[in-house]
């Protein structure tokens, strides 16, 4: 089993594609650093800047109509935390490595897309190249081969997340410097209260929940990869599902049945920051839904992979 896992990992990391994706991720972090640096107000000028922000947020909230519920809520949260910062004399623009890392965490969407590329390819590519015949005519059973591919996918997901975290902090440190454990992050909690959390704790929470989301989403791509046997198709469908899925959930958030859609449940951050997107959802419910989907998707992949005749690819 460990040998199979080594094989699958080698097939990921000996391809230049993997390193190109990671390089792109690092370049993206660099771009975020550059943007952050150039949009920083002059030292000491943060109060007037923040006051302007609060005013324009207020105008937006009172005069704009027809914005989706979720966007309105986002603006409202921003307003709440800006006011909190003003009141407590906290400079929200002051950036250090930690603060920057939590900004760069927004690149998790990009990281996820890259993870889906590998997850959607890992089974399908064996069919596309015909190497599946060689792979399945050694002595390893199909179940073991599939398990090793799945584990390699998750390991790649973890590694990509680490690349994002480590390079965000490193680039942040190089550009903005490190100031102790960093200033606390201001955010709106699930009950609408403004709170502060140590920036490292905030980072850990963000990435912890990202890993949960990553596992579930990568499993979708992995399942599609076994079903379609075409890398292009499974990668495209997986990324589209990932992007459209959460947008769809936002758009349909007034219907309560939406809570049974997988994507309403994958982001557990909602139970700690901002509150659940659909009224009545709980952390326990979301975990149960994810586990149910997870079992169905893995069961289906396994069943198809083990039972299917490998004839003309």
């Amino acid at each position, binding site marked *: 089993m460990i040998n199979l896992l080594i094989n699958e990992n080698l097939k990921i990391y000996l391809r230049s594609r993997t390193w190109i994706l990671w390089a792109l991720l690092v370049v993206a972090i660099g771009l975020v650093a550059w943007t952050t640096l150039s949009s920083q107000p002059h030292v000491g000028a943060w109060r007037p800047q923040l006051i302007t922000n609060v005013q324009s947020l207020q105008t937006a909230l009172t005069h704009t109509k027809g914005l989706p519920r979720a966007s309105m809520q986002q603006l409202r949260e921003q307003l709440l935390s800006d006011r909190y910062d003003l009141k407590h004399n906290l400079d929200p623009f002051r950036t250090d490595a930690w603060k920057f890392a939590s900004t760069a965490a927004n690149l998790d969407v990009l990281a996820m897309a890259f993870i889906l590329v590998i997850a959607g390819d890992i089974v399908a590519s064996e069919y596309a190249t*015909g190497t599946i015949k060689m792979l399945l*005519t*050694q002595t390893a059973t199909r179940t073991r081969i599939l398990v090793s591919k799945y584990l390699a996918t998750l390991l790649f997901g973890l590694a990509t997340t680490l690349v994002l975290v480590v390079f965000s902090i490193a680039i942040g440190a190089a550009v903005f410097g490190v100031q102790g454990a960093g200033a606390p992050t201001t955010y709106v909690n699930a009950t609408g209260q403004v709170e502060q959390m140590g920036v490292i704790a905030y980072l850990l929470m963000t990435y912890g929940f990202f890993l949960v989301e990553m596992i579930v989403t990568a499993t979708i791509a992995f399942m599609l990869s076994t079903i379609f046997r075409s890398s292009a198709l499974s990668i495209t469908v997986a990324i589209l599902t990932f992007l459209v899925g959460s947008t769809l959930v936002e758009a349909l958030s007034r219907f309560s049945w939406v809570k049974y859609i997988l994507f309403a449940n994958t982001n557990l951050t909602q139970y700690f920051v901002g509150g659940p997107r659909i009224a009545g959802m709980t952390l326990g419910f979301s975990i149960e839904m994810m586990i149910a989907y997870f079992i169905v998707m893995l069961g289906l992949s396994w069943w198809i992979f083990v039972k299917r005749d490998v004839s003309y690819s």
Partner: protein
Amino acid sequence: MTLAPRVEIAHLTKRIGSKAIVDDLSFQIPAGEVFGLLGPNGAGKTTTIRMMVGLIAASSGTVEINGLDVAKHFQQAMQHVGAIVESPEMYGFLSGRQNLRHFARMCQGVTEARIEEVVQQVGLEARINDRVNTYSLGMRQRLGLAQALLRRPDVLLLDEPTNGLDPAGIRELRDYLRRLAQSEGLTVVVSSHLLSEMELMCDRVAIIQSGKLVDIQTMGEIAATADGVSEVSLDVDDASAANAVIAARFEGIEVTTRDNELVLTLSREQIPELVAALVGAGAKVYGVRALKRSLEDQFLAMTGGRSVD
């Protein structure tokens, strides 16, 4: 000897929909035999080999390797099998050696030294560290063979192994397989529609058509025809004079004349008789040749000369 057969196929059948693409196939292959699967395109050779290595589940029937059912004891059975199914696809972004290491990791007891050994056996030392993307078809075929030999199998399954090999490579492969079969008792199953290939390589050949076993022929039997009658070609100086002698000696015999070559069908005993008669009549005989009916003729006769069906 009453050794159990290395490969035993019993009532192997594959149905897709209502069509049986392999239909009730049964045969046994002992150790050390090179066994051919011969049939026109679409006969079901590849399908049979795919079922033998578990890529396709049989609709009914069994495949046993060393007495182990491939469907039930996949791991143990496959430990004794090396295979190339259709073209030998490898990971193009890896080197030949990395590919072999990859497959070596998947089974028990293949050492780095063994990898070195098979690379030499298939004659790929010079290019083994290059990426497979840069290989020619024949080089891929050699690498595929190296892969199949890695775990010292008892049974080697090769689907169209000469595909893409140059004449020297084909000859080399043929000699190599024969040598392995003879010296190490390896059982080899090759499929092909190249009849001449099969004749030179195999001990026995199963002729398959439309998924059904038509016949199993031993190669030795093919040279000698059933009732000892063979076609003979004579090279003479004067065809018409010779024809007259033959007509006088063997009444009613049919002779085909082409320039100074006469072709006629005789029993073995009649051949010296004919030569003596011709010489006695003053004809000059430059050559006498027994024309073997080739496997190709037999094959075409058996399958009715049709190809794809």
